[in-house]
């Protein structure tokens, strides 16, 4: 269970997050929505250990994560799929996936994890030996998600997984997330594609200007007037 309370973050003098509080319960899919620059990536960064918050707390299963190194956070059970995938382009699909299981805990379950990933993304099985640099955007995203899954996480975080990917593949990835969640992994998702995110998630938060501007059950938010106007209206991103 992820609990964030009163989180404050800044880059130099620029305040990025102000008093952000949210939770992700076990087995939930929670979406984080909001315009560009609202601080969504920074929030994920704080949880993953890449960004040090100025104030507030981030606790995972009761433990404070703020002073923990990113690689140890993976050990604790949180894995992140960063924006833009950030795969190791000079290495093969197999190597990227293998590195995903680097932490001690994940190593033990390596074989099963790999099987699960390849079942989830059959496309990758045929391309195991290929360099990831040669794959399409959608396939790379699958590798990125797979790499995070190899860490045997209890919470999977994704930063804009649908960005720059062909619609059919987006569908496949979102379906995969449902599967993953069904297996007991909580999902915390930052997504530009609001409609798809709200269809997928149980709950959602809306971040605007570094503050939580709204929250609630996904179904309810889909109907909400402000949400419809700001994010689902004619100028909003279409699924």
């Amino acid at each position, binding site marked *: 269970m992820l609990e964030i309370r009163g989180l404050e973050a800044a880059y130099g003098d620029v305040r990025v997050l102000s008093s952000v509080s949210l939770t992700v319960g076990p087995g939930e899919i929670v979406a984080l929505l909001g315009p560009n620059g609202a601080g969504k990536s920074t929030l994920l960064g704080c949880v993953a250990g890449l960004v040090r918050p100025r104030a507030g707390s981030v606790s995972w299963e009761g433990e404070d994560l703020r002073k923990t190194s990113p690689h140890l956070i993976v050990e604790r059970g949180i894995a992140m799929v*960063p924006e833009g995938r950030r795969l190791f382009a000079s*290495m093969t699909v197999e190597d990227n996936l293998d590195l995903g299981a*680097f932490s001690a805990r994940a190593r033990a379950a390596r074989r099963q994890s790999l099987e699960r990933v390849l079942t989830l993304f059959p496309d990758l099985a045929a391309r195991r030996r290929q360099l990831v640099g040669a794959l399409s955007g959608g396939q790379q995203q699958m590798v990125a998600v797979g790499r995070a899954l190899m860490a045997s996480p209890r919470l999977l975080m994704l930063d804009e997984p649908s960005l720059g990917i062909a619609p059919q593949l987006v569908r496949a990835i979102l379906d995969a997330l449902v599967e993953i969640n069904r297996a007991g992994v909580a999902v915390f998702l930052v997504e530009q594609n609001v409609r798809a995110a709200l269809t997928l998630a149980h709950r959602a938060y809306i971040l605007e200007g570094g503050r939580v501007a709204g929250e609630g059950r996904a179904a309810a938010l889909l109907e909400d007037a402000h949400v419809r106007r700001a994010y689902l209206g004619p100028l909003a991103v279409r699924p």
Partner: protein
Amino acid sequence: MCGAPTWAPSRCARDAGAAMTLIAQQILLGLLLGGLYGLAAAGLSLVFGVLKVLNVAHGELIMLGGYGAFWLFALLGWDPFASLLVVIPGALLLGAVLYLLLFGFVVRAHEEIRIKNSLLVGFGLALSLHALAVRLWTADDRSITTSYGGAVISLGDLAIPLIRLLSLAIALALIGGLHLLLARWRWGKAIRAAAEDWQAALLTGIDVRRAYLLAFAIGTALAGAAGTLVSVGYSISPSIGLEWTLKALIVVVLAGLGSMLGTFAAGLLVGVAEAVSATIFGGPYREVVGLIIFFVVLVLRPQGLFGRSTR
């Protein structure tokens, strides 16, 4: 030669043949030396590629490796090739210590400051190590002469010094080993991942600090090995540090980052190029040609010094 008034065809051919042999011999020797250049450069390349740290004390580490082998030989009678078994682990340890005490702090800054600081720290380290070496061992040249030191393998008209041939073989083996290490070993892949994208590596669960430590230690070990081979095939003194740092830099600039085998090949190339220029311009200027090529390539490479093959 052949344009002399008393033109005797057979003598002309013989003179030409002798000249050819001379050039071939020089190229061969250049190749043998180039293998050590490649080994020296590999360590520097690894450290710079992974940690983004420019350790200009790399030459001094080579020098220390050479002295390690020399004293094992002078005091204990150890064959220098055997002493590699001690020098390499010793250098690994030294590298780990240097990382923990010095360079580990340098890597905390972001890339541009990191490179500059590492340059300065490396400079201070080089100066200190040099002064220490002069104090401990005097400024004299040292060389290891073994019983089989003069042995030569004849290949037609060419004479291949056995020791230098063995050194080339060992250098090649070490580079090959390093390549395999980086390709197959779990931590080798972690090192490559950290080199490419350290944040993504952290997110994958890799302890990047530990990967850095390993890379630096391995780089130092390679330097130590190179130093040992230099001490037996050539000679060492406290002053070879700067010379070898420059040589390593020249090779790395030509090869770019990313491939250990490519770096080794570039080392061979530099060795041969030096030999050829020595034949054309005369011995004393062989150093200059290498440095000029270095400077020109440095300035002309549009990606800055090291063109990344990835991203």
